[in-house]
Every structure is written in C-alpha cells, then in structure tokens.
C-alpha cells in the first residue's frame, strides 16, 4: 500500500530531513511513527501527499509512483489519503458541518449524498451536537475530532495523523486514540506520528522510530512490553 525505497529528502537550506529510508506499510495496518522533533515524521507525511518530491529514492502509494505522478493527478492522490494535520488546518469561518463537507464539495459529490455522508462521519466521531458550531467555539479534543471527521469524509484508503493527541489531556487523548483504532478496524490504513509514549507503549501496534531522518527502529508489534 505504501512503499518507501531508499528515500531521502534534502531541503534547499541544506537540511537533510530524510536519509535512505526504507519501509512499507500494508493495507489495514496501524503504524506509530515516533521520534523527536525534526526527526522527519511530518516530512514523510508531506512526501506521501505529494506536497514535495523526494531528493532520491522512490515512493509508491497504492499503485501510484509519486515521482512519476503528473501534477494534475496530485489532487486525486490527496483524496485517497486523508490527513489530520498537526495544526488541524480547519477553516475558522466555516461551521463544523461545512468544514467536513468541504472535501466532498471539492470532489464534486452530489449535495444531498454529501450532507448524508457528513452526518454519518460526525456521528462516528461524536460531533453531531456540535455540527453548527464554529471552530472557535470548540474544545481541543472536539477540534481534533473535526479534523478526523474531515479526513474521513471521502472514506480514504489511508489516514495520516500528525500528532493527533498533542496538547490534549490524557482522557481526551485516549478518546481520540480509541476512535482512530475503531477507524482502523473498519479497514483504513493509519500512520500516526506521535510523541505520546504512554499511548505507544500501551497499544500493541507497529512502531517505526526515526532519528535525524534515519530509520532507527521498525518493530512489527510494538506496545505493552516495548519502550
């Protein structure tokens, strides 16, 4: 489903964000991407959605080779890969409902079907009572759930979650985590970048650890016994 082969990324400033990275993620897998700030977690996500190209190596998402993908196909790729951004990237002038509706509008879906889909997703993340609120009226956990709902609106094959529990209290973090595990159970491949070792050590899922752009650990089954 996702295959990184000898991937490196060097920015114009000279910073080497990723170096000779090899890993693959299968369909339905749940993977924790861990590592300190600047280790390259977000760069991996940005490469997966084609925000920029790798300096070397190849990235294959489903059957698409990112390097060979024409620019006009990038929006199609992004509709297949839902992203929960670290800074959420919600529209503050749109309600919860409108924020979640946006990807469906962008995909030119029929309006009635789209509204129904938004209601389904809001129900799934427990936001139905907040559907007409604006982001400024919501708590941190609720905002995270809006971001999850928006990322799920187009039923993507892959979900990338960048620090979805950052800045949240433990109870809310676990709530978000459980929702992501539920989504994964329904067949969505999830890669979650996190610093939250409490969550990582308590959930027996694969861990890919990075440090300064290098892959330092790839445990097929992380969790309880591992640090």
């Amino acid at each position: 489903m996702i295959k990184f082969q000898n991937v490196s990324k060097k920015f114009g400033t000279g910073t080497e964000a990723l170096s000779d990275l090899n890993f693959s993620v299968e369909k339905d897998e749940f993977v924790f991407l861990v590592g300190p700030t600047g280790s390259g977690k977000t760069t991996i996500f940005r490469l997966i959605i084609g925000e920029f190209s790798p300096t070397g190596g190849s990235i294959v998402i489903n059957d698409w080779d990112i390097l060979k993908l024409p620019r006009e196909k990038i929006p199609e790729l992004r509709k297949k890969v839902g992203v929960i951004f670290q800074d959420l990237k919600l529209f503050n002038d749109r309600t919860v409902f409108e924020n979640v509706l946006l990807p469906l509008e962008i995909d030119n879906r029929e309006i009635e079907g789209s509204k129904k889909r938004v209601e389904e997703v809001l129900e799934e993340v427990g936001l139905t009572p907040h559907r007409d609120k604006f982001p400024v009226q919501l708590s941190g956990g609720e905002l995270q759930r809006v971001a999850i709902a928006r990322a799920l609106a187009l039923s993507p094959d892959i979900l990338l979650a960048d620090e979805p529990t950052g800045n949240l209290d433990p109870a809310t973090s676990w709530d978000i985590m459980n929702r992501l595990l539920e989504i994964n159970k329904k067949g969505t491949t999830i890669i979650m970048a996190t610093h939250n070792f409490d969550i990582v050590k308590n959930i027996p899922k694969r861990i890919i650890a990075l440090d300064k752009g290098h892959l330092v650990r790839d445990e097929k089954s992380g969790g309880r016994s591992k640090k």
Partner: protein
Amino acid sequence: MKFIKTTNQNIRRSPYQAIAAIVIMMLTFLVVSFFIFLIAGSSKIVSYFESKPQVTAFFKNEAKQSDIDALQSNLKDSGKVSNVKFVSKQDALAIYKEQNKNDPLLLDLVTADILPSSLEISTYKIGDLSAVSETLKTSPIVSEVIFQKDVVATLTAWTSALRKIGAASILILSLVSIFLIITIIGIKISQKRQDIHIMGLIGATNWYIRWPFIFEGIFYGVVGAFAGWVISSASLWAATPFLSNFLRGIPVVPVSPLFLLELLFVELIMAVILGGLAAYLAVLRYLK
C-alpha cells in the same frame, strides 16, 4: 453553483473592494457608451448631409430672370442634378423673416432688395457637387457658390478624431480597470492564501480554487457595465428633448430602444471578457 456561492461569499466579505472594482468598471463602460453614442450620432449627421448633396448659388443683383432660367435648364439637362429650386429675393426675405421672427430690430433693417436670389441644387451623387459648383462659378450672373462638401469634410474629420479619442480613452480606462481588478483579486488571494493552501492539501484542483476568483472578476465587469449602460442610457433619454431641438431636422434622436439593447449586449460581452481576463491574470500572477 458551488463556485458562485464562494464568489458571493468573497464579494460580501470585502464590500469596499467590490464597490471600487464596480465603480471603475462602471466608469469604463460609461465612457464606452458615451463615445458610442457620439460616434453613432455623428455618423448619422454625416450620412444626413451626404444624403442631401446641395449647392447653393447666389445671384448678382443685376442677374436677369431669363439668364437664371437658362442656367437652371442647363443644369437640369446635365443629368447630374436631381433637383433645382429657385429662391427669389421675396422668398429669401420670407425665410429671413421666419428665422428672425423674434428680433424685430433685425426685421426692420432688411428688405427684399438687399437679399440675393439663389438656386438650390441637389445632385444624385456627392461627387458631382464639385463639378456643378465649378460650372456655377464660371457663370457671370453668379456672385457666390457654397456647397456642403466642406460641411461633410469637416464633420468626417471630427468623427474620425472622435473615434480616435474614444478608442484611446476606452483603451486607457480598460487598462486601468484590468489593473485594478488584478490588484483587488490579488489582495483577496493573499488574504486567503492559508485557505487556498489547505484546500490544495485536501485535494482541490487548481481550477477548483481559481474559478471563484474568475467569477468574481466577471461579476465586477458585468455589474459595472450594466450600471454604466443604465446611467448613459438614462442621460441620453434625459437629453433627447434638447438634442432634438439642437439637431433640428437631422434624424439622430430619439435613439431606438433596439440600438440600446444591442449596445447592452455588446457591453456585457466586453465586460465578461475584461473582468474574466483581469481575474485570470491575477490568478496566474498570485496562484502559482
């Protein structure tokens, strides 16, 4: 529909920028309308004079009626002349009295003796006016010949100058409109840069992002053009009584409603092109 909704939202959220864009477009189309009225009107005036080729020959006081009659029949026989009318001294006095009926002082001073008798000659073709005029000038009984070739030439020169000034003004105002719309849409794109970036990240195509801005440019153009057309047409309507009095006998006003509707149609097409082009240039410049 979605694009129009977004366009509507963009316009309502920055009404002053929208007003500025509409006002400059309105001014452009106001000038376009006025120059088209002037050009169409002056062309009609020229056509009017061209359709009435006329030479007037004034006779010397000593001219005998028999000589005048001979000259008149010579002209008729030439085949170039469509109509010849003799205006006697008495007829000339009657015309003079009619023209100055409100000024008794002028009427008192003039008698039939001091006014010349004349021949008013129309030709089939405007090109024959010169030849007829030359023939008349050589006649010993003719004191002065005037013909409207000069009037037509002057009017044609004026119309041509008017066209050039009109084209230059329209070009300058169109460029100003385009630059203003580019600036306004550029500001809006800068204000929404973050939103545009997010839309791109969640799968929006370039054209999905561009269309609302292009519709916005078209909207400014169309509303401005319509407002300009309404103001210019209303001004023309209000000026019609004055113009029909001023252009007595020349059928320029009232302007037909069909002409005004045709003008609106052409201006709306121009507005779509102008607004759409300006917005497209802004999008190319600011949305790479």
